[in-house]
């Protein structure tokens, strides 16, 4: 037991600080991806909701692709494909190759996956808002953009929140995939610790527990957000 505590201690002999740094990378990656994914997802949902068939179809192609591909494959396509494409571009423009950042590649790939699922959540939330809300807002003389911003969006947040909460928990788990392209997140640092100490079961169990703790903390946070979003609803 003391041996295990020693392994998890902070400092030169233990792996506590490495794991903590990994947790930090995991959390910041998820937090950095979230606004990007939400924004793209919202725009895609708007496109799917449009009366213009061309726009709708374009949005459906996006969702079909990024919901159908394994997350790992999306990550590799962005990482290696981005590397090859950017290198060609950079050599053309500046005459030297380009090194793609694995953090950026991970962020883009996770945002693509997150946004395609989020667009479906937003779309069904849009269906929960009655036409009368739009008509009422137009009757008051609000422009289309102000109707969206002041009337529709606040209701949309409330309706989309349960679905988005699930997607956030998925995102947190999906960040573990970036360890494969060399980003030193929690799982990658755990792997390194296992390589040195040979205590595989112990360290991976600790890593799983840390992911679980992150999920639990998220759940508490999301419950607060949900209470905030429901504040105007009254009690039934």
């Amino acid at each position, binding site marked *: 037991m003391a041996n295990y505590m020693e392994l998890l201690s902070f400092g030169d002999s233990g792996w506590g600080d490495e794991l903590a740094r990994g947790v930090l990378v995991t959390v910041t990656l998820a937090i950095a991806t979230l606004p990007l994914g939400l924004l793209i997802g919202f725009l895609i949902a708007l*496109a799917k909701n*449009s*009366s*213009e*068939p*061309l*726009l*709708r*179809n*374009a*949005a459906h*192609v996006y969702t*079909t*692709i990024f919901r*159908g*591909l*394994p*997350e*790992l*494959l999306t990550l*590799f*396509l962005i990482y*290696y*494909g981005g590397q*090859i494409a950017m290198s060609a571009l950079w050599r053309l423009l500046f005459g030297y190759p380009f090194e793609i950042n694995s953090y950026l590649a991970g962020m883009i790939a996770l945002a693509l996956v997150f946004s395609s699922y989020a667009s479906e959540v937003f779309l069904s939330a849009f269906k929960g808002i009655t036409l009368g809300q739009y008509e009422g807002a137009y009757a008051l003389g609000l422009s289309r953009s102000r109707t969206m911003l002041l009337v529709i969006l606040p209701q949309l947040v409330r309706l989309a929140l349960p679905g988005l909460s699930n997607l956030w*928990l998925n995102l947190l*788990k*999906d*960040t*573990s*995939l970036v*360890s*494969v392209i060399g980003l030193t997140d929690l*799982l990658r640092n*755990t*792997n390194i610790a*296992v390589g040195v100490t*040979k*205590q*595989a*079961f*112990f360290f*991976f*169990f600790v*890593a*799983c527990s840390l*992911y*679980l703790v992150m*999920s*639990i903390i998220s759940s508490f946070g999301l419950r607060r957000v949900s209470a905030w979003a429901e504040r105007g609803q009254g009690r039934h």
Partner: protein
Amino acid sequence: MSYIDAPSTERPPAALRRRWTAARFTGLALMALWALLGLSIVYILVVGYDPEKLAKYGPRILSGIGVTLKLVVMSVLLGALISIPVAAGRLSSNPIIGGIAFGYSYFFRGTPLLAQTFLVYYGAGQFTDTLKAVGLWVFFRDAYFCAVLTFSLNTAAYQAEILAGAIRAVPSGQWQAADSLGLRPFTTMFKIVLPQALITALRPYGNEVILMIKASAIASIITVLDLMGQTRYAFSKTYDLQIYIWAAVIYLVTVEVLRRLWELMERRLTRHLRR
């Protein structure tokens, strides 16, 4: 004379001319972008066509597809089996049994599948001597078996939630009616409640199978040579991106075909509910 019956002499209004709105313009631009992307992918695949590479890696990729399908089918079926007691636990009124089932489900749904796979595959290595003594080492030594085990345990947690949720969604009046007809609880469960619950669960089950196909790519990281594993192998030998594009096409087609088939099956099975 009644004016309602008077036939209209007016011609129907001319169809509205579609205007060039911002939405239409954006839609056209995005579709053009997709078309460009699609064409460039076709271009890459046509230009990059190399009979030598195809002869060398084609059969490997095909065998990879086989491994992926086998992995998914085995995991989903084993998972379905394991999910039954877990779902029963989730529905149990006994707090200890309920707590254990909840803990199982929470652990497997709250941690990344990749971490679980590492835990089983590399974690087993820490207990080599014990496992050898019990005779289970041949099982845990093999990455493929470890992947099947982890994926089964993982999907069992999700399937248990689907099953338990669907059973809960059957109105309690069904139980009461069966009870008042004198049916035993066992009969009620299998003849009345489950048939209705499984209809509700059909769509989530389909989603779970698709998620499993996608998640099975993770097996490649612990050296299983499934579709993703063979793709990674071929890429590491050739550094040719078209191999990843082929893999993407295969995954997309598989998922899309399965989705369509599942939709057909669902329409067929719920035809008595449609009006």
